[in-house]
């Protein structure tokens, strides 16, 4: 299960404004990846390009060996059935209640009986903790519930790839923690390829296998989580630490001299590699049976923690 997404040389601009250029990365099958970036760096545009809602200027997006950017409309609709997408505000259909919203893809794409649809929908609603709210309209519930309902709808066709557009925006820290746990649990259960687009550093530190960072119209870095968390690349460090000193400015970027000065003033030993503390990784909850991939991750985490305890002592 899970499908690899291979992005090569992707460039997108609106008019004369280049959003990002020459983005190349591979989202490994079955793994969780996070795309980080300051506000307005085209993270959502990137996500929409992956599902073929926007056409890039050049480059390719290969999913299961097919280039999304060159498919004809009806082929595109076929490939999109592999995807589940959680939009920023859930993007639920305002005229339908939650049950009908979540049942919608099943009714449109499958010939399942109503009782079978009911079973699947209730199972997914249980998964995201929405049992009892079937009859509510999207306008009547909180933003967090809308997001969870949107997630349930994205899951209902058993997608191979799940994309999350800022799952944590507009939620309180506790709900974000629950949502992160839910994402990790889901990955252990359904083994799909996950891409989370966000600017929440806490989530990015805990959840993914891989992290990418978009800044200054390009992909600054993409790689395994530990590599980025311990990276000495100034942009990556500034962003992951959420501080003002560094190349990222309020409006756009700062000039090089100022950056140098700031970093020197900070004097946090940024020249010693690997000095960054590794946040422990979020693991699937106790009730979830872990597939081999997660078993390996859990062992690795335990090993790291043991080593840290030894170093501290």
């Amino acid at each position: 299960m899970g499908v690899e997404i291979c992005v090569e040389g992707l460039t997108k601009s609106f008019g004369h404004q280049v959003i990002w250029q020459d983005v190349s990365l591979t989202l490994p099958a079955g793994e969780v990846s996070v795309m980080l970036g300051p506000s307005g760096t085209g993270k959502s545009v990137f996500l929409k390009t992956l599902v073929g809602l926007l056409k890039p200027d050049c480059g390719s997006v290969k999913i299961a060996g097919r280039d999304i950017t060159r498919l004809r409309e009806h082929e595109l609709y076929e490939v999109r059935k592999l995807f589940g997408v959680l939009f920023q505000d859930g993007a639920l259909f305002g005229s339908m209640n939650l049950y009908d919203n979540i049942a919608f893809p099943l009714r449109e794409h499958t010939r399942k009986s109503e009782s079978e649809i009911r079973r699947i929908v209730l199972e997914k609603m249980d998964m995201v903790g929405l049992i009892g709210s079937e009859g509510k309209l999207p306008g009547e519930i909180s933003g967090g519930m809308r997001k969870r309902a949107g997630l349930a709808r994205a899951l209902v066709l058993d997608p191979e790839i799940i994309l999350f557009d800022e799952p944590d925006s507009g939620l309180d820290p506790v709900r974000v923690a629950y949502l992160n746990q839910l994402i990790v649990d889901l990955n252990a259960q359904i083994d799909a390829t996950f891409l989370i687009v966000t600017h929440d550093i806490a989530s990015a530190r805990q959840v993914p296998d891989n992290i990418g960072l978009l800044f200054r119209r390009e992909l600054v870095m993409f790689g395994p989580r530990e590599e980025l968390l311990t990276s000495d690349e100034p942009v990556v460090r500034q962003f992951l630490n959420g501080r003002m000193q560094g190349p990222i400015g309020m409006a756009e970027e700062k000039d090089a001299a100022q950056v140098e000065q700031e970093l020197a003033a900070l004097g946090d030993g940024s020249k010693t590699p690997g000095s960054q503390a590794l946040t422990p990784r979020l693991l699937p909850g106790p009730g979830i049976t872990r597939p081999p991939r997660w078993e390996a991750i859990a062992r690795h985490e335990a090993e790291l923690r043991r080593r840290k305890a030894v170093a501290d002592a």
Partner: protein
Amino acid sequence: MRLSPSGALRHSGNLFAMALDVVRTMPRRPFQAREFIQQAWFVASVTILPTALVSIPFGAVIALQIGSLTRQLGAQSFSGAASVLAVLREASPIVTALLIAGAGGTAICADLGARKIREEIDAMQVLGIDPIHRLVVPRVLASMVVAVLLNGLVSVVGVAGGYFFNVVLQHGTPGAYLASFTTLAQLSDLWAAEIKALVFGAIAAIVASYKGLTAKGGPKGVGDAVNQSVVITFMLLFVTNFVMTAVYFQVVPQRG
């Protein structure tokens, strides 16, 4: 909307492309019967009352104008014939078009526009569902059907209104008015008017859907889209009306 010649061309091109998509998608199964009935009911419910209320004074104005014109020309015996002709041929398709565009089209545009900016349309596409097939085709068909039916309503109400004003208020002779009914008008006039209404209904719904589906920039964008859709629809309707009328006179031999 930027005012550049290429922009205008691009918009017309996209609009035309969507119209072609609608035509191409129309025969695709499964037909969205539920959506079609809901939309037909909805468009009818927002247009029937205003249409009836508009067509009464419209018929009256035509009756008054023709009544006084025929008196000036000394052709009172033709007043019935002329007012039926005017209502049937021009007034009813135009009134239908204005109401379908003004009441039905704006509602369609606002609805789709709101869905677009809430990302519902994107979500639908990502779920592998073509919004043209699922949303636009039922709306276009609904609007066409309702336009045809409304055209009948306007014709009846307009002619009845004309009769009332001519006979009761201008003291015309009922017998002469009724007798001259069919001296100029013929059945093909009614068919032509119905075909016009059908085309106007399609244009109004396609323009409204196009503008709704391309709305952007938040709630203000939806307002702009609705505004533009009405303006564009009206312009297209009057041009189409002129062309269809000219063709009609060339194709169908006239009486008398």
